[in-house]
């Protein structure tokens, strides 16, 4: 099944909105369904080997972080009864459930976004945004932010390599890697911001603000227009429903 970028984007928006408006059990089902998306449509498959590797790595980190979140909530939110003890510390079912709910919502949000960005080249996102009424300067800022995130792993690797070449035993343990990462955070952000600014200037110097589309996108089909409008409408309705519920309660 082929899906155009606009439909994909509005579906992603709907999934993100669902993460915080629908019950967590529905969110859990939707989370499982996000893993089926690449199987159902090539539009959701990672566009390169690098994207596939990034997805695998993210999934691992996300699972670990979710586990940590659930554990911490079970320990710190002392609600309900103690389920069992972990290293002598009691874990409470109230906290455990809260942790599971929060982790589910965050995982649905992050995996929805991840599937979208790993399966959509930046220039296609830019091209779609240029069709909207968003000012070119804002589109440029978004593009530069995406580019920054896209190049970030390679940049971090280069800095790690430079540190290692000066004697830091980066690869000796995970802890050392994390410690080294915090050491480089400030210069990484400083040089990345400066490079992003220069990159934005370079695009401006080539007439980016003239509004020319980055590529000629094929016209949308009737079904994709209907689908994307339906997803957008559903998202708005969910937000509205949530606001009304909050006001009434």
């Amino acid at each position, binding site marked *: 099944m082929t899906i155009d970028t606009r439909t994909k984007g509005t579906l992603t928006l709907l999934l993100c909105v669902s993460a915080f408006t629908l019950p967590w059990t529905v969110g859990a089902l939707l989370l499982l369904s996000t893993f089926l998306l690449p199987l159902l449509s090539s539009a959701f498959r990672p566009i390169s080997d690098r994207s596939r590797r990034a997805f695998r790595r993210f999934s691992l980190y996300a699972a670990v972080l979710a586990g940590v979140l659930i554990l911490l909530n079970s320990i710190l939110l002392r609600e309900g009864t103690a389920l069992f003890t972990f290293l002598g510390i009691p874990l409470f079912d109230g906290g455990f459930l809260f942790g599971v709910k929060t982790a589910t919502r965050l995982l649905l949000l992050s995996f929805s976004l991840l599937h979208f960005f790993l399966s959509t080249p*930046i220039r296609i996102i830019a091209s779609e945004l240029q069709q909207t009424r968003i000012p070119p300067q804002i589109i440029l800022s978004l*593009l530069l932010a995406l580019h920054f995130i896209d190049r970030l792993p390679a940049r971090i690797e280069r800095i790690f390599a430079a540190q290692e070449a000066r004697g830091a035993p980066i690869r000796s343990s995970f802890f050392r890697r994390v410690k080294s990462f915090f050491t480089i955070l400030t210069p990484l952000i400083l040089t990345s911001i400066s490079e992003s600014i220069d*990159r934005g*200037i370079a695009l401006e*110097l*080539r007439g980016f*603000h003239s509004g020319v589309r980055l590529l000629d996108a094929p016209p949308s089909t009737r079904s994709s227009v209907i689908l994307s409008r339906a997803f957008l409408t559903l998202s708005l309705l969910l937000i509205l429903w949530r606001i009304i519920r909050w006001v009434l309660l």
Partner: protein
Amino acid sequence: MGLVVEIRNLVYQYSPHLPNALGGISFNVLPNTCCAILGPTGAGKSTILQAISGILRSHHRQGKAEGVIRIGDVIHQPIPDKSQFPNVGYVLQEPEVHISGLFETVAEEITFTLRTLDVPPTLHADRVRRITDALGLGHLLHRNPTHLSGGETQRVALATILVAEPPILLLDEPTTSLDIHGQMRLYEYLRKIKQTTTLLIAETNIDLALFVADYLVVLEGGQIVFNGTKAEFIQRIADFSSILAATEWHDILKSIANPRTRAEKRLASVLAK
């Protein structure tokens, strides 16, 4: 055809807490000539190029400028307040930033400039081929522009602007990452296009100035310490040896100052062009 660039009493201060980056400089660049701006790091070379290109005003809002810049028939007082592309093409000092990251091949990256100029698509292939042949990029057209070496990146960055064939071209240290081949190719290309383009090149590499430039301006601390023809500069090159990387040229230029042998006369005529 190239346009004239005229700078009159240009003063620029990046912020109230900093000294003037440019302290009232004036010089002209005639159409279809090449002017090389030489000077040590921090002398103000890039500031001049950024002022002419229009990005200085648009990206440093707290900067203060005085003076006048004339580009062709248009007078800007003090400096242009937005990008002057396509009249002015500007290649920044860090070539990596010209690789947008939006395209998967070098050909697409270069073609994007032509799209912004509304050049008819039927002309794209020819224009791209001409510039890539001139810069030796033919074998890289299908490569990913984010996976190139430093020298290759610099040549692609040049191509993204040169393909627009702007009447005024500003280059900021274009030879930094190039090997000798790349440098010679670039000199050849610039010597060819200066017949139809006004060139303004900031450099620390004196070779480019000697092989391509018609006029030279030497900057130090935001002030002009030399402004004249290449012949006049060659006579006085020893005066600037402390601020310019030119020591290897001293003996050469002394030998050909009063050429006697055939080799000396030949080299004198090569440098005089």
